[in-house]
């Protein structure tokens, strides 16, 4: 049997791979992200209302609510529960502020063996570091722009 040129073999192979590879379950992922992300927002709203009921201003209640969500996310990540929710929720567990806390705890826990300073201390900021860098630089630029052009 005559073998095909390598280029054609590669193309054939790519085609077969494309056919066989399972399609990402897009609809299921999107539904999971929507429901879980929405539910976390509802929990946030419950805390927001609760703290406002205690007499805090809207801004203070928002800060207290965020801190509470962060506490719960850190706890659930430590217990291994947040990762279970993430299997269903996908981006619904990443985008909320709870996902920010989750990213800090999970990498710090994983590298704890490298010590308190270079393990826990540094790895808390594997994801949080970039978020703060780009958040702060963007905020600074907005402030500068507002200062000169308001």
């Amino acid at each position, binding site marked *: 049997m005559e073998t095909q040129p390598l280029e054609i073999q590669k193309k054939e192979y790519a085609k077969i791979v494309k056919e066989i590879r399972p399609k990402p379950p897009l609809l299921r992922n999107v539904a999971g992200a929507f429901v879980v992300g*929405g539910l976390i*927002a*509802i929990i946030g709203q419950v805390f927001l209302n609760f703290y406002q009921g205690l007499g805090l201003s809207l801004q203070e209640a*928002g800060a207290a609510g*965020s801190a509470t969500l962060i*506490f719960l996310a850190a706890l659930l990540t430590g217990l291994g529960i947040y990762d279970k929710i993430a299997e269903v929720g996908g981006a619904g567990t990443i*985008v909320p502020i709870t996902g920010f806390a989750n990213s800090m705890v999970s990498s*710090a826990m994983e590298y704890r063996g490298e010590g308190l300073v270079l393990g826990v201390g540094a790895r808390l900021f594997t994801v949080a570091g970039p978020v703060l860098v780009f958040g*702060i630089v963007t905020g600074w630029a907005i402030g500068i722009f507002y*200062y000169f052009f308001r």
Partner: protein
Amino acid sequence: MIFFKAFLVGGLICVVAQLLMDLTSYKITPAHILVGFVTAGALLSAFGFYQPLVNWAGAGATVPLSGFGHLIAQGAVQGVQEKGLLGVFSGGITTTATGITAAVVFGYFASIFFRAKG
């Protein structure tokens, strides 16, 4: 009603992130998503698009990390109004101080108290 709006908007913002992860051929990690949403939230806030969303959907707009970006941008503007140029440097962190401290402190203790599995 506010709970329904929070659910709707909070869910939809997460759907945007899920579509970015699933439909683009780039390798988009959670870090890229979080950085992108903070930056986008701050910029949308600066152009006045984010506050109306917060007014309408409450926690649905503040709980996603774009709300964190919104807080930073709001703080920068408030800082300029109160302290001028110095406020450019202090404003963004002032409004987000509670969240940042909570994340560092709770994150620290959680990673000390709990052991990673496996």
